[in-house]
């Protein structure tokens, strides 16, 4: 045997290895040097999501985020894209439904282009100009994309469930496709510029850089770029309370669909910062996180062969989202799949987790956490999440012991408190053939 490289150095705890700088305007910057590959990844969060947009016009938040890269005071959209693409660097700012409070910032580049990437990120955050012609183009594209999404059974089922559970005005309420198209068509440049002025600023900004970089240089460069940025609103969040369940069935009949989607959904009060989050997450993993190994997967996929995919999840961010089970089926298997799913949830709520399940889910979650930290982007994302939810960088080091501490009683109680099988909204979309 020859040639084995030296073993890697023992890794310092994240809380020691990650460099941190807090700016006077509130921006929080984090850098981890990871020299194994000549690349860097950036992940960031800023509180300018749909939660903060006007109640009837939530999509202002996502369009504003998306339009940040469509031109700045220094560069047109095309110039900016040319500068980044010619170096294989990328910047994206997006607000999606997974966290109604946050806007996700991400970027990647080869480390030789660190300055180019960081400058571009600062520029799009601080100096967007929202060109009128770009917005008009985007509106046309959005209308087409909404029509395209409306052809998807998964989208239609999910939207029908969210519309039934969350009342108009709630950040998780979903307008119909036609309603959204009308909102898109009414958007003006002033809407975006106004929302930007109101919500964007350093006070809620978290920016994490991981990769083959010099931490001090990156921190200095970002401080230079962001230090004089307006603070903007404080990072306070007052999410609306979860509504009462809306039991019942909704069917969206769509012609010509070989596969149907079913969503079983319940409102939940679980946020990511809830002390019971990990207990709920472990219980959910045993019930339905994996189509192959969890109880729902073993029953509905593996034993009964009714679906390719079945999956359950708590949508817990700064806002308490729903608990959902999603399953794809051959249309004429829908009722059988729903009945088996509800039966399995019923059993799970009644009997709770077994000790073996809890032990396996714990080791799974801890192992998966390590695996997810296996890339620059994975680490950047984990630090960003830990900091923007207020846990701090040390959360990455503590996570395994936090998971290990959860007891079976805690997991069962936390899950039972939130999942009542009789209260599900059951929304399905596909070609069922109306009676």
């Amino acid at each position, binding site marked *: 045997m020859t040639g084995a490289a030296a073993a890697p150095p023992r890794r310092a705890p994240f809380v020691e290895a990650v460099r941190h700088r807090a700016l006077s305007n509130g921006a929080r910057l984090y850098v981890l040097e990871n020299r194994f590959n000549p690349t860097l990844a950036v992940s960031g969060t800023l509180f300018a999501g749909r939660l903060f947009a006007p109640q009837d016009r939530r999509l202002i938040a996502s369009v504003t985020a998306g339009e940040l890269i469509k031109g700045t005071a220094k560069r047109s959209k095309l110039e900016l894209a040319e500068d980044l693409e010619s170096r*294989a660097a990328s910047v994206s700012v997006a607000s999606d439904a997974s966290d109604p409070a946050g806007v996700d910032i991400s970027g990647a580049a080869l480390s030789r282009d660190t300055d180019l990437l960081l400058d571009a990120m600062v520029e799009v955050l601080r100096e967007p100009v929202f060109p009128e012609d770009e917005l008009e183009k985007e509106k046309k594209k959005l209308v087409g994309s909404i029509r395209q999404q409306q052809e998807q059974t998964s989208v239609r089922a999910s939207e029908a469930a969210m519309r039934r559970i969350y009342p108009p005005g709630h950040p998780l309420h979903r307008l119909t496709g036609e309603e959204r198209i009308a909102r898109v068509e009414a958007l003006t440049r002033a809407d975006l510029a106004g929302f930007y002025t109101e919500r964007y600023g350093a006070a809620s900004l978290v920016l994490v850089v991981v990769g083959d970089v010099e931490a001090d240089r990156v921190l200095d460069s970002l401080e230079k770029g962001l230090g004089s940025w307006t603070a903007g609103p404080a990072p306070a969040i007052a999410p609306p309370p979860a509504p009462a369940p809306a039991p019942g069935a*909704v069917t969206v009949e769509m012609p010509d669909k070989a596969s149907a989607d079913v969503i079983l959904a319940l409102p939940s009060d679980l946020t990511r910062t809830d002390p019971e989050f990990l207990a709920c997450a472990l219980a959910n993993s045993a019930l339905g996180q994996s189509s192959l190994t969890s109880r729902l997967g073993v029953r509905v996929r593996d034993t009964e062969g009714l679906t390719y995919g079945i999956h359950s999840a708590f949508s817990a961010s700064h806002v308490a989202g729903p608990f959902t089970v999603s399953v794809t089926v051959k249309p004429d298997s829908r009722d059988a799949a729903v009945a088996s799913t509800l039966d399995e949830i019923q059993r799970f709520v009644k009997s709770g987790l077994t000790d073996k399940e809890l032990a396996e889910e714990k080791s799974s979650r801890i192992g998966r956490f390590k695996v997810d930290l296996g890339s620059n982007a994975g680490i950047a994302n984990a630090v960003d999440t830990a900091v923007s939810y207020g846990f701090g960088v040390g959360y990455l080091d503590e996570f395994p012991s936090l998971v290990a501490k959860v007891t079976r009683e805690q997991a069962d109680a936390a899950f039972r408190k939130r999942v009542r099988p009789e209260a599900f909204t059951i929304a399905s979309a596909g070609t069922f053939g109306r009676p």
Partner: protein
Amino acid sequence: MSGGPFELVKEKAGFREFRLSSNGLRVLLLQNRVAPVATFCIVYHVGSRNEAVGHTGATHLLEHLMFKGTPEFQRDKGTAIAAVLEALGARFNATTWFDRTNYYETLPSDCLATAVRIESSRMRQALLRDSDRQPEMTVVRNEFERGENSPFQVLYKHTFATAFREHPYHHPTIGWRSDIEEVTTDRLREFYDTFYYPNNATAMVIGDFDEAEVLALLAKEFGSVAPSSRPIPPVYTIEPPQEGERRFVVRRVGEVAWCALSWRTPEARHPDTPALAVLGNILGGGVTSRLHQALVENSLALSVTVVPWQLRDPALFSVFAPVRPGVEPSEVEKIVRDEIAKLATQLVTETECAKARTQIEAEVIFDRDSTDQIAASLSEAIAVADWEWYADYPAAIARVTPDDVRRVVRTYLNDDALTVGAYLPRPSANVAVEEVA
């Protein structure tokens, strides 16, 4: 190195290739200690390319059955493969494609031995029970049906079925519906007993490991697996040259039309492959690319995807675009053809060519950010060529000139070698009615 269970075959760019002397298993090692994580991946050189009518989709259905267990790993004993891996926090799965099937596990590096043992167990000892096939067939049929819901997947399947009439790339990896439903367990076992052998596989370990330890582990788990007693059957069918443009239309209820244009191109090993890849980025790599500018920026298409397919046998160069509602799909087709015609006459600038080369070279560097990404790229490379092809790829890309780009456009992107497909929305009186019960 000699005398041990392995012989060192070759090394280059950090990769070390070994051969297990007892059975011919190829082993590829790449240390990448970016995190205490490793990926184990085994690639079998069998895919839908090795199928024929009657058992299309067999490779894929077999891949599903491979999770149903072996004497050592099975649900009845509380050691189901997926459950064992899930408990370690592994990111794992298997995928089937035209030229290969791969099984992979990314997991904490101190758990590597479990992944290796599972793969060695299912290489020759999969249970493949008929009682497992029955429910799994309907699982796969639902996977097929999900694909049928996607206009992109429908278009790509029709494109290959139209462009390839004789070669098995004609049929999709998922298979045709009736073959998925009717293929027997015996036929799947025959497939397994033909292709699942160490001498038809490559095992890779990527990430945080000690070479001596990992070779000892592989020798222990795979050393006693016998090679196949019969030669692995070759695929000898050749698709003859296309002698005229082909067209197809799919009409289904919906709102958004799609347009697809695909030209016949050579196999991945062909020296023109790097130039075709650069052409792909010039046409579709980002906001500044030619087709994005011509179609998306002009509000004619919602997006555009360019795929220079790289396969073991001659393949395609494809452009797919969802058409913005209100725009005629024929208009999008015309613009794509016009852009190709321009590239056949005018040379791209060195700057434009350099941008495309940089993007592709960077992809290879970004691959090394995570062990599973390298494993995914290497799986494709060894399926269509070999790992050296992957190792040499950045250098081959770096040599592509504007002249090369024009030459491959002139050589391959001709009307006679073109297949044009359209997915056209059919209006319905009953579109999406929502009823509350």
